């Protein structure tokens, strides 16, 4: 135990004289002379004098010392009158310290506390918002029932204050007042309702906290604010985010129907798409089943996703539990990566996160399987962390990974941390029962452990073996015999008892050994542990029934010993057994069935996870961690069968318009807001169009300009210059990478702000849809309606911001007002900064998202045959992963095998013979390769998008072999996620360039999309574009044929 600050030496917190004497020296009072006073009385007198002096510095010193006393838990309440006088002090530090004192002691000295109230009432009217806020904070912290009406009034006023900071404090005060006087609930709910409508991000978190505390069941208050909360969420401070997310999780569970279906077949084959292309996923959902997700439900899931990347572990966990509890099962997978990331933080965070992962991994193994190795135990982990990790490893064990895991467990069993070693043995037992393929291996392993030197390990193994044997009623005579021998050496009672029980249970299978064991234990009966004694009695009884000839006397001897034992349990048991098995005239009908009773088939114990029953608690909560219901835990309701009316969340049009202007978040009053937002938008659009012009100008110097300009000319006829420039840029960029990147026009990714900021523009483009109805559609319900018009509008909306941020990114000499913060207007208020900030944030929506490979073929190509390589064989394959060595490179994995019987030393890449422009990143030289050993290395090759051959030399210490890699065209591609519409557009632009075609032969009956998909992904690294037409399947490779 370390020397921590918790030298806990006094409990009562009383003001003993001696304590206080020491006290004064340890506090920081600059005038340390006071420490010399020894008597309590005198010292406090002195403090009083100081408090009454005219000098602020003396008062301050006194207050500092008093605060020091409070911090130590000492009673300073008798100074109350002297302190309270200073509440009106001009010096803000004194004032604050007085506040600290008041909050601590007001409850004990209620009458005197009232003296200070008028000061607070005055401060509540102070022009300085900080003073108003802190007055309210302290006033509401004074727990004196008599001032409840005053508090109520103050809260009401503050909730309408112009400063959001004061309103935030009002929200906090609500909770305090509620805990002081629950009678005020109704009035407080009214204030909460009002504050919930507040548009400031500062207030949102605090008011939801108040809501949760005061009226968590009044879910109807949330309806109208639901969409606003979802949209503000990203900008709320991190603590508020946690509270809001937890509340919204509960809300969603009452308002939406379950997105989970029985036997979710989609889960597997669509797993690869979900995070890159939610839109597609949703389409697929719609085609295949009647269930359609409420757009509000989708809004919540979408808007919380970015928060998975928060630095705050609590926020990440909150989002994770939200996905777990309300997202479709196929989408919940994205949380695992973030949770695994949290495992790098402090011990306490690890502990909580691992617990939650343990619960999740029981139900959905697949989620964490890819991260199996992240749960490997380090010898430096704390024991509780080790055990949790072990628990997760056990949950994740399956046929495929069990052999690796068992090897890992072998290391753990030898750990110096014996508690952990014992837990590992139990784990092996559980794996043995859950995965039948390895149960024999596990059993053998455990038997080997029986000869371990450490007793705890042996004892644990015995107990686990006992359970395993009980589950498999096969012949395991050998093991039982071995264990019988152990009885001589092992001393741990549980283990001895287990062995005895096992022998008794199988006494007919080991007829020779059992009586002998009984003989031995009869000798040592008196010195055994109670647990063991009971089992000796049991063994005796069982043997008496099956083999009474040999053991009758022995059993009777034991029964006699038991009769006079000191423990009454043992005496009881002895009496019971004697009556049951030894026939005499008094024994009833029961003794006839004695054999059936003792040797009945006993149900095998179930070895299951201690986390099995935790799933009924909401993840991430205190109750989940403790596995008991904590005070104030709010049950997560089950999904409703039928969704309640979704229209309750609709907000009236007028209010809506207000809400969605970018200034919605502002604290400014209306007229200003209107002005700013409009001008800003205009500025934006004019700015961005001028940018895009200059942009295309600067571009013209670059290569490949001619065909691009042709394209843009075509486009400009249709959609004006802005979107075209943006696209031109994007295309050039993807060209520069030499790989197929493209912007992802995924609507799902676009946040509401984008639509906010550009709604003005879009309506000007499309005048027909300028009524408020369609505006609201574009904001929140757009995904449910697939009107083509709307789609067009969308794409335009997306293009606009794109051009803007392109200009931000690439023009170095750019000195426009791209960052609104730089506006030199002197009257720039913080709230305006906030608005502009918001706009700036929204300036993005085009997403170049490389989707994960749909399929990675296991096909390897021979690089060097072992005959020609003098025993060195090499194979390569394309892992279809982004190359770590450079963007343009294709990663190639080479597996080297040594088929000789000697070491091959110094394997490296020698001379390279590459065509023009081609580049290669070689692997690091391999020092040596053991006989029959194999090693996999990865390289990166830039094929310049051609199928030219890369030739190089593979050298060992003695020889050099020329080898070459020629990539199939399919491996040069990279899948990206995009919508069908964009795909078509791109395709149109690219037609007539390099085309590669091939014919896929498929029997008509196999003409299912999945078959074709399989065939195509086998040869090329592409993704699937969601297609509206069923008979046409589009793959993005088309796009890249031109590259």
């Amino acid at each position, binding site marked *: 135990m370390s020397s921590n600050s918790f030298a806990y030496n006094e409990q009562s917190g009383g003001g003993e004289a001696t304590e206080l004497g020491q006290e004064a020296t340890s506090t920081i009072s600059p005038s340390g002379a006071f420490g010399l006073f020894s008597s309590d009385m005198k010292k406090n007198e002195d403090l009083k004098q100081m408090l009454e002096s005219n000098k602020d*510095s003396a008062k301050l010193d006194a207050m500092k010392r008093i605060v020091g006393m409070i911090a130590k838990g000492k009673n300073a309440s008798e100074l109350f009158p002297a302190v309270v006088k200073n509440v009106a002090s001009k010096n*803000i530090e004194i004032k604050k310290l007085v506040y600290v004192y008041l909050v601590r002691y007001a409850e004990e000295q209620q009458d005197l506390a009232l003296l200070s109230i008028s000061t607070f009432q005055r401060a509540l009217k102070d022009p300085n918002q900080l003073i108003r806020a802190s007055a309210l904070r302290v006033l509401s912290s004074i727990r004196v029932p008599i001032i409840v009406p005053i508090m109520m009034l103050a809260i009401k006023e503050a909730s309408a204050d112009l400063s959001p900071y004061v309103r935030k404090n009002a929200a906090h005060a609500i909770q305090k007042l509620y805990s002081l006087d629950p009678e005020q609930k109704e009035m407080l709910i009214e204030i909460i309702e009002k504050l919930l409508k507040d548009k400031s991000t500062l207030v949102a978190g605090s008011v939801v906290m108040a809501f949760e505390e005061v009226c968590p069941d009044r879910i109807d208050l949330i309806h109208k604010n639901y969409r606003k909360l979802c949209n503000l969420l990203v900008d709320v401070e991190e603590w508020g985010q946690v509270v809001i997310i937890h509340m919204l999780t509960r809300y969603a569970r009452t308002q939406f129907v379950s997105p989970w279906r029985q036997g979710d077949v989609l889960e597997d084959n669509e797993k690869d798409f979900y995070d890159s292309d939610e839109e597609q996923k949703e389409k697929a959902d719609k085609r295949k089943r009647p269930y359609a997700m409420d757009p509000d439900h989708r809004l919540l899931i979408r808007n919380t996703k970015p928060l998975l990347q928060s630095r705050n572990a609590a926020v*990440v966990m909150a989002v994770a539990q939200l996905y777990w509890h309300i997202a479709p099962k196929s989408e919940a997978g994205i949380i695992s990566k973030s949770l695994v990331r949290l495992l790098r933080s402090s011990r*306490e965070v690890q502990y909580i996160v691992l617990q939650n992962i343990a619960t999740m991994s029981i139900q959905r193994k697949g989620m964490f399987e890819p991260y199996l190795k992240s749960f490997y135990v380090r010898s430096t982990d704390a024991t509780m962390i080790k055990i949790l990790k072990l628990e997760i490893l056990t949950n994740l064990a399956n046929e495929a990974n069990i052999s690796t895991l068992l090897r890992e467990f072998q290391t753990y069993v030898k750990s110096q941390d014996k508690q952990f070693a014992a837990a590992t043995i139990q784990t092996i037992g559980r794996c043995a029962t859950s995965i039948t393929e390895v149960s024999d291996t596990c059993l053998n392993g455990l038997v080997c452990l029986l000869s371990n030197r450490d007793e705890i390990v042996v004892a644990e193994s015995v107990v686990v073996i006992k359970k395993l044997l009980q589950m498999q009623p096969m012949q395991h005579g050998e093991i039982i015999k071995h264990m019988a021998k152990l009885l001589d050496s092992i001393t741990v009672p549980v283990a001895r008892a287990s062995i005895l029980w096992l022998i008794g249970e199988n006494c007919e299978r080991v007829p020779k050994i059992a009586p002998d064991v009984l003989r031995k234990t009869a000798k040592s009966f008196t010195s055994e542990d109670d647990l063991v004694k009971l089992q000796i009695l049991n063994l005796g009884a069982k043997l008496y029934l099956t083999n009474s000839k040999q053991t009758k006397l022995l059993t009777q001897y034991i029964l006699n010993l038991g009769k006079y034992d000191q423990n009454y349990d043992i005496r009881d048991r002895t009496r019971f057994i004697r009556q049951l098995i030894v026939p005499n005239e008094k024994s009833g009908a029961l003794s006839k069935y004695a054999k059936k009773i003792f040797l009945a088939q006993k149900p095998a114990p179930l070895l299951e996870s201690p986390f099995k029953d935790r799933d009924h608690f909401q993840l991430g909560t205190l109750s989940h961690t403790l596995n008991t219901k904590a005070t104030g835990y709010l049950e997560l309701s089950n999904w409703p069968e039928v969704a309640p009316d979704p229209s309750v969340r609709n907000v009236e049009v007028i209010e809506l318009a207000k809400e969605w202007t970018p200034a919605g978040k502002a604290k400014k009053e209306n007229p200003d807001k209107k002005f700013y937002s409009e001008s800003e938008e205009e500025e934006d659009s004019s700015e961005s169009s001028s940018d895009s012009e200059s942009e295309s100008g600067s571009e013209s110097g670059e290569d490949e300009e001619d065909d691009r300009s042709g394209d843009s000319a075509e486009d400009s006829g249709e959609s004006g210059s802005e979107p075209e420039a943006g696209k031109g840029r994007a295309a050039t960029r993807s060209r520069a990478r030499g790989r197929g990147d493209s912007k992802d026009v995924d609507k799902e990714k676009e946040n509401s702000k984008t639509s906010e900021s550009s709604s003005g523009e879009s309506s000007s483009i499309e005048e027909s849809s300028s009524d408020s109805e369609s505006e609201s559609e574009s904001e929140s319900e757009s995904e449910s309606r697939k009107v083509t018009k709307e789609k067009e509008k969308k794409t335009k909306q997306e293009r606009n911001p794109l051009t803007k941020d392109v200009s931000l990114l690439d023009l170095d000499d750019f000195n426009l007002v791209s960052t609104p913060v730089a506006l030199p207007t002197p009257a720039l208020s*913080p709230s305006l900064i906030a608005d502009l900030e918001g706009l700036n944030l929204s*300036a993005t929506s085009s997403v170049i998202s490389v989707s994960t490979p749909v399929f990675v073929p296991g096909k390897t190509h021979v690089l060097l045959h072992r005959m020609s390589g003098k025993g060195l064989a090499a194979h390569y394959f394309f892992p279809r992963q982004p190359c770590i060595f450079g963007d343009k490179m294709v990663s190639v994995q080479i597996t080297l095998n040594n088929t000789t019987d000697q070491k091959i030393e110094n394997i490296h890449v020698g001379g390279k013979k590459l065509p023009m422009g081609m580049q290669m990143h070689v692997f690091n030289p391999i020092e040596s390769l053991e006989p029959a050993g194999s090693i996999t290395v990865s390289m990166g090759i830039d094929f310049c998008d051609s199928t030219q051959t890369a030739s190089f030399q593979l050298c060992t210490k003695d020889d050099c072999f020329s080898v070459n890699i020629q990539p199939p065209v399919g491996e040069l591609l990279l899948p990206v996620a995009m919508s069908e519409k964009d795909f078509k557009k791109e395709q149109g632009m690219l037609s007539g360039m390099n085309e590669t075609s091939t014919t896929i032969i498929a029997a008509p009956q196999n003409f299912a999309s999945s078959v074709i998909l399989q065939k195509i992904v086998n040869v090329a690294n592409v993704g699937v574009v969601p297609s509206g037409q069923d008979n046409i399947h589009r793959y993005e490779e088309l796009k890249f044929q031109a590259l």
Partner: protein
Amino acid sequence: MSEKHWKSVVSQSVCDYFFEAQEKAADVENVPPVISTPHHYLISIYRDKLFFVSVIQTEVPPLFVIEFLHRVADTFQDYFGECSEAAIKDNVVIVYELLEEMLDNGFPLATESNILKELIKPPTILRSVVNSITGSSNVGDTLPTGQLSNIPWRRAGVKYTNNEAYFDVVEEIDAIIDKSGSTVFAEIQGVIDACIKLSGMPDLSLSFMNPRLLDDVSFHPCIRFKRWESERVLSFIPPDGNFRLISYRVSSQNLVAIPVYVKHSISFKENSSCGRFDITIGPKQNMGKTIEGITVTVHMPKVVLNMNLTPTQGSYTFDPVTKVLTWDVGKITPQKLPSLKGLVNLQSGAPKPEENPSLNIQFKIQQLAISGLKVNRLDMYGEKYKPFKGVKYVTKAGKFQVRT
């Protein structure tokens, strides 16, 4: 020990439950972070040899409390230079003032250090002298502008004569190497720490040569998430001073280069009170850079009494109480590989240890980010001046363990 109450006052006796748990756990590391008592729940963190305990009455996400306690400890560290018992005792009033601003009725108020520093000025010797003469105080009397805006992390009116922006790309290799030297598990965890001293309201964007390397990233709240999603560019208005910009993990599918290898032979003889210990360290995939700052830490088994070793380089210490062997190696020179050889004295009569201890290795490689991550450029908008920019790369061993 220091206490501060929000909501109603809770008796100190509640801590007894904590001390009980602490006694039960043999090691401080094993004190459970969440303890349930009949009326309250105790959530604690252990940091810098101090326990920070909070008493909870109702349901609350435990991570919320843990994360907040860590933030409190960070703030103390920031204010007092260290988060120790002495520092807290010496500054008990500031601690109280800070806590008052950080939490209100169980809900965090201001946790950004930039805001707190405007409200309560950190103690310096100069300031305390000035204060005692002029009678001015450490406590600000206006609401920090940051508190109201959407960028609470930056204070207004920052001014520097030299405008500088430095970024440290620090990568740590977490690895478990098994007996035979093959890698059981390896991944790269990286952070980018920034030290920004720029006047006004600069808007920065930082781009990488190979942003796709970053598999899983967590951001400081100042980073615009959408820009990252769409273009893989970090765009932000930075806080003033030192802060952690991002932390990231490099995809575990990529092979991780392991810069050092260890040859080891540790053996204990049966029925004799000695054993042999021999380890050698050499460079492996070090990308042509020097590996320096190597330290090897070994937790020897309990039966080890003492060790008699000779290092060819550096110095070693063995603590017979904690059984920890530390070998401070220094740099590796490939011509002469550092090694540590010698005898181990065991307690006579005790059985030989079951398992060989694992070796924990620390090292540092300057000017290299082992994942290959490279910063492409840093652009600043919104301010006219030309800042001085710098990027530094370091690779370190994280939880780097060699099983023997």
